[in-house]
């Protein structure tokens, strides 16, 4: 009985420290967010580079 309980508890803990299977949030939204944020970051870096090079006037 103790062993069964222990295994059940371990299984629950393992699930908590792993990304859940078939999660819409982790399968679709997170990768999309990472890509979009990467693109925005690149845009902001290009803008700042434009300021440095004198292309963007301020």
């Amino acid at each position, binding site marked *: 009985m103790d062993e069964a309980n222990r295994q059940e508890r371990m299984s629950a803990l393992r699930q908590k420290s792993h990304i859940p299977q078939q999660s819409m949030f982790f399968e679709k939204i997170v990768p999309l967010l*990472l890509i979009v*944020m990467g693109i*925005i*970051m690149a845009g902001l870096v290009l803008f700042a580079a434009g*300021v440095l090079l004198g292309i*963007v006037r301020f």
Partner: protein
Amino acid sequence: MSVNQLLPFFSTAIMLVFTVYVLQRYFVRRAPYFLFWGIGLAMFGVGSFAEAYLSLTWNKWVFFAWYLFGAALNAGWIGHGTLYLLTRKKWVHGVTALLILGSLYAGYLMLQAMPKLDEAVFTPKKLISEQYGTKVLEPGETPPAGAQTQTTTYRGEQVTAVRGILPLGTSVRLTTPFFNIYGLLTLVGGAIWSAYLFWRKRVLPNRVIGNVLIAAGALSIGFASTLTRLGYGQLLYIGELIAAVLMFAGFLTAARPQPTEEPQPVKVALAVK
């Protein structure tokens, strides 16, 4: 006082708690990334406090702190902490030296700009982010309502400009893109990279979410700063508040201890490679 002018007070309070939280970790663990994060966050907090102060009255040294720490340096220092977290190579120490020297140089340039500040332009009725810079008007461009203009010679041309506290051609303004590019690449890029690594390994969902929040927060302030450069300074304060909230929430989420199978000492970090 408008709602917009109240926002820096909230940002300052959040950043104060955030800074103390991070520096406490540094004093316990002595990890350099906590130190650089703590210093960068303190600079962010100083910038927010300066905004709050300048919404009440003028002080040129508060303006000095606002521009140097709030506009120029903080992103670079926070991002440098992330670089220390992601790589343990010796060349990072060289980058540290460059960062410190660059920051000192920016401070020197800002000191040189101090006697030239056009203090007469200042009004507490406008946000400091809307009145700090002198902006050249393009031919045919009309100045904003109520703006004070001047005609002057700039780079050999006769130009009309909207007067700002920092005069045209102030060298310190050229240093900010360096720090902001470095800060964006290391802080946002580092958070995106960390989130991706955990996501790919299918582990520690709290660190995936935490790093997404940190990246989103840093982008929020980066976006608001860019708009400020373009003359939309009224969005800076809300961008800062969003950044403070998201980054603190991200840090707390990522640092939350996860249950493990084997008993072991609690290990708390923003992210690991």
